């Protein structure tokens, strides 16, 4: 039997996921929408699930009914390894009128894919949600439909290029997942896995406040919601939770004959005169817009933080220089009244009079200063909404999204900067003009900020222990700090560079911790030309997390050969050849601890180097004498042969 790799498991799961997405009709269970029970379920820790860790599922429940409830938490999940649907149960006792929530946590074994979480009392299902984790393909366009009969989008079932602007074979696939309205999650996080939520005209929208909030958050965070045109309960629901500016926009758009897509926060609201579910072709107005938007513009939404505007620090407006001159005059007057006046005019006064004069003068100027600050700090066009959204699966791509809404319709000079801790050199593809360095990313541009804006970035997730992003928005002094820190389960890589020439000062040890998930490791060094030509052999070893023991020969991934010279140099940026001599960078893919041979690199450097570990700055276009290649173990065991081979002697 062939053991399924993670990739096949995922593929399998994607296909199975669509089937599982349909809640199975279990005749023994009766689903009810229980009033008086608030439930919130979250997976993972701060939305990160480490592959090698067990995954926590935190369930919070409160019972505001007058009756005591004894129920069972039931978590069904798909076990990757066994390809079986398994379940975990935990009893919970909810006393009546329980105002504080009770939290329950179950830990699923690794590689579990959560499918259904439910709160069950005997055969009655008090609460149930479909939760997926990693099972939804990011390459596809996922759409969630909310309808009484769990209808899927008809056009999404088709997959041919002839249908409107939808992708053809080989392009992005559209997948539809259907739920009933009561199954909507109470947190926006699960919703953000979908590019759009299509709500049917007939959907029953008697949702709990948390569900309403989740839906609105999803929209503001960058999600797309398709609602029926005209007056509808969906629109009322959304308007109740949106700011007035957005409400005006939605009202205006919904009353149009051909309603236009309306941007709310960083998301998009689509109106459709007809019921979207009935469409077999989407060549018409709103549907086309939706399709275009989903395909080419919409970014996945993923809420992380939403900061209220009072978090934004006050600063000076751009045109504050005129006011500042007034401040200068005030303080000049203060300096005059407390300096020369006391010194020259009041010198014959008694100590008591002097104390009064000094005290009163300082008090008056303190009061003036107290009011000068707020006057300077006031600015029009204050930022009303500010949210930064991001998705950070450990070892993959990262999307960051900034959503701004300005009340005064003022253009803001927007500057985004990011910081990475313990990161390695990897390229990033921020979808705007940006500058990238080891420690920070960002860009700066003037954006007309009439109602809202949306900036998205694809950041390569790096092998980082701690990730911290900061978003800064000008006018200066305005700041939003988004901190996203996490610590992953870390291994350790030990890199040693050594060579046989005893006169050369090397043998460098560098230990770098890295995550044991989809990690990539870049090992780099630079060399100075100081002596004769020599070979530098770089070996990497991996330590077991938490211990100092090496793994022996099972160290480097067998894919090392694939990550050859091309890839090695592909990630190195700048090189000061004259000064530093030569350098190399080796990128190792995710280490695999099983059945992998050792791998070595031999770097031929024209002059004898004094090596120091450092971050590599290297431009392959400048040319180099450095050769890095994989050496077979047979050559390693025969050093003379190796040297002969290098010297061209046969």
């Amino acid at each position, binding site marked *: 039997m062939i053991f399924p790799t993670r990739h096949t498991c995922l593929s399998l799961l994607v296909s199975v996921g669509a089937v599982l997405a349909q809640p199975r009709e279990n005749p023994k269970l009766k689903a009810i929408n229980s009033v008086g029970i608030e439930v919130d379920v979250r997976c993972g820790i701060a939305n990160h699930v480490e592959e090698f860790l067990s995954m926590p599922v935190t369930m919070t429940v409160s019972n505001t009914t007058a009756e005591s409830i004894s129920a069972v938490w039931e978590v069904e999940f798909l076990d990757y390894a066994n390809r079986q649907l398994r379940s975990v149960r935990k009893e919970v006792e909810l006393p009546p009128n329980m105002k504080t929530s009770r939290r329950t946590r179950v830990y699923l074994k690794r590689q579990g894919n959560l499918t259904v979480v439910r709160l069950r009392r005997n055969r009655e299902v008090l609460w149930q949600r479909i939760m997926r984790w990693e099972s939804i393909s990011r390459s596809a366009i996922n759409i969630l439909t909310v309808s009484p009969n769990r209808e899927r989008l008809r056009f999404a079932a088709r997959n041919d290029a002839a249908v409107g602007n939808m992708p053809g074979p080989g392009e992005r696939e559209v997948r539809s997942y259907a739920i009933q309205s009561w199954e909507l999650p109470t947190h926006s996080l699960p919703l953000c896995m979908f590019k759009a939520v299509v709500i049917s005209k007939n959907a029953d929208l008697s949702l709990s406040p948390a569900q309403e909030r989740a839906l609105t958050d999803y929209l503001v965070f960058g999600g797309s919601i398709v609602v029926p045109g005209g007056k509808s309960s969906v629109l009322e629901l959304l308007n109740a939770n949106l700011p007035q500016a957005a409400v005006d926009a939605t009202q205006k758009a919904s009353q149009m004959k051909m309603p236009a897509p309306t941007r709310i926060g960083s998301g998009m609201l689509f109106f459709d005169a007809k019921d979207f579910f009935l469409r077999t072709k989407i060549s018409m107005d709103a549907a086309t817009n939706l399709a275009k938007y989903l395909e080419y513009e919409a970014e996945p939404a993923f809420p992380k933080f939403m900061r209220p505007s009072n978090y934004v620090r006050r600063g000076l407006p751009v045109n504050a220089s005129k006011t500042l001159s007034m401040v200068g005059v005030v303080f000049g007057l203060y300096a005059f009244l407390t300096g020369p006046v006391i010194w020259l005019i009041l010198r014959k006064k008694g100590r008591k009079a002097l104390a009064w004069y000094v005290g009163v003068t300082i008090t008056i100027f303190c009061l003036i200063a107290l009011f000068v600050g707020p006057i300077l700090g006031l600015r029009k066009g204050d930022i009303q909404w500010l949210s930064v959204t991001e998705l950070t699966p450990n070892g993959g791509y990262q999307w960051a999204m900034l959503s701004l809404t300005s009340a005064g319709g003022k253009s803001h000079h927007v500057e985004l900067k990011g910081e990475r801790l313990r990161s390695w050199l990897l390229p990033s593809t921020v979808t705007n003009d940006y500058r990238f360095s080891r420690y920070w990313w960002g860009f700066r541009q003037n954006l007309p900020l009439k109602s809202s804006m949306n900036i998205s970035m694809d950041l390569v997730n790096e092998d980082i222990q701690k990730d911290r992003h900061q978003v800064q928005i000008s006018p200066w*002094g305005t700041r939003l700090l988004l901190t996203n820190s996490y610590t992953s389960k870390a291994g350790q890589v030990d890199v040693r560079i050594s060579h*046989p020439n005893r006169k050369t000062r090397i043998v460098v040890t560098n230990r770098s911790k890295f995550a044991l998930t989809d990690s990539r490791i870049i090992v780099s060094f630079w060399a100075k030309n100081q002596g004769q030509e020599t070979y530098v052999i770089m070996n990497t070893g991996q330590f077991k997390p938490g211990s100092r023991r090496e793994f022996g020969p099972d160290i480097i991934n067998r894919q090392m050969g694939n990550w050859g010279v091309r890839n090695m140099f592909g990630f190195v940026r700048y090189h000061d050849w004259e000064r530093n001599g030569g350098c190399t960078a080796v990128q190792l893919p995710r280490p695999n601890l099983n059945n992998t041979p050792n791998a070595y690199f031999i770097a031929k450097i024209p002059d004898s180097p004094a090596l120091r570990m450092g971050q590599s700055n290297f431009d392959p276009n400048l040319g180099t004498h450095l050769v890095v290649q994989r050496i077979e173990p047979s050559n390693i065991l025969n050093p003379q042969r190796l040297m002969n081979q290098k010297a061209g002697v046969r």
Partner: protein
Amino acid sequence: MKALARKLEILWDSPNLLKDIGSLLSAWRIGAWFCLINMVLGPLMATMIVMGSIENEEPFVQISQQLGLGQYLAVNLMLGLCGVLTLLIPLRASGLIEGPRWAKYFDQIVLSGISPERYLAGRIASQNIFFVLILLASMPYAVFGLSLGGTKFSYIVGCLFALWVYANLLSVATVAAGAIVHETGAVFLTVTLAGVMFGLGLIPVAVFGLSPTHYIIEPFHQALASAGKLSTGYQFVINYRGATYQLSSLLLFAFNGGLLGLVCFLFCLLGPVNCLVKENSTFGEVVMPGDTKRKRLFRMRFILRRRSEVAFFYENRNPLLKRWEIPLRYLPICAILGTTLLLAFGVAHYYSYELDLEDFSGLNLFLMCAGLVAAAFTFTADRMTETTEMRCGRFTFTKGALDATAFLFFAALVYAIGFWGINMREAFELSEQRSLGQAETAWSWLRSPPDVREVAYVKKVTKLCHFFFLLGLEIYALIRLMGCQFWERSTSVFVMLIFLLALFGVPLGGTLVFFSHRDLRHLAQSVAFISVPSPIPLIVATVDDYVGGEMGRLLDTGWYRVTPVFHSLLVLTLAGWTVFCHRTLKRARSKSAEEKS
């Protein structure tokens, strides 16, 4: 408590405090101080606003944007205040001894019997009034910073607390230094040291948390760190059993500053070492044997006279201080010196694995030398104090003997730490190579030569450790010998340096001249032995395998191998000579005491 309260009342009753209050709160002085503060703070704030608002990539702009203008200005304001205090407090704290001496009424102060603590504490206490005055003047600026937003009130309060501790520390340090050295020098010394600490505190390294500026500028560091321009090395973090604790730089400074202030105050109470010997025991008049034949110019000994006057003043101190002088004087010095040494070695070892073996060895040796030299210069005496008797309860020892003991203790400590550091590193390297060798036997052919090289290098450095220890002993013996000859310590140190230069440099230079000059080169082998006193060839030969040029030729002669033996003999000779001089001085002192009695 009552006794303490009574003590504090007496201090508050100091004539200096009453005098200072009267002078500080006069109109023209208040106006002058306010003028000065506004002249410093106003332009500083204006400059900072301009620097922080120019739209470019300057760090000031980035910091101001990240912190908010209020916080940005608050930091600058506090830094400005700190700078003002650094300059003004030592200046204001001076003049306690030199003022009366110049006005020729210091003898009246001494004869009045006023205790030194009461006399000096008044000036220290009056600095608090001056501090409040400065705070009042800067209050509108602080309120402006607060009103702009972004400034935490707790930060302002924390800064004011740090500045208060700093102001008191400066004043007590100046007064203590003024009692020991000339007050001009004391002010210069305090301002220089405080200025250095001010500058070091701005550096984002945790060790410099001993300065108040480190706490004040911490928001800047945080802003730069959050922008990825700075590592988080400015935070003082302790790792204990896997958990990480971050120490507040404010508390760190307050604790250290308070401790240092207490030590300084203790030295205010103790004063300089009693230096009343036969030659200056007529209240300040220093009359040396043979002065009647000297001209007037050569009979004027200002420094010795000042020292004897201050010594008379400190005869009024509490007898208890005299009874326990040895622990009170030596323990704080040993604590400060020891802490500094341990801190320096600790930091070096903490970062040692980021350095390669040679760099680490160099740093270790440098710290060892610095520790030995610092101990040698700290525990030394001159002819006036060499035989001064100090007490510890019922026991009495001479200062010379105590200094020698303290130095030997520190020299042994430094030697042990340095030696241990090198060998620890060697053990680490070997264990690393061994562990790697077990895993990858195929690489042993490649790694063995560096192993040999490293082990050999460590052995060489260990030899240097021994040799530097020997040189430290030699320098100390020389300083002590010179101290027995000269009345002033600075003179003895100066003469010692000249002697060392002559011993180490001149023979070596002469030998190298022979080697470099073509006509003299045939004589060079014969005269190479004169370079034996110089340790330089030995050090060079130990550190580097191959040295070219004249030095290489000199090393080829092999004379440098005798150098350790020569220096060992020199140490023994100097030590014996110093002991002889010490005994002679002691005999003379006891003889004069008998004559007096």
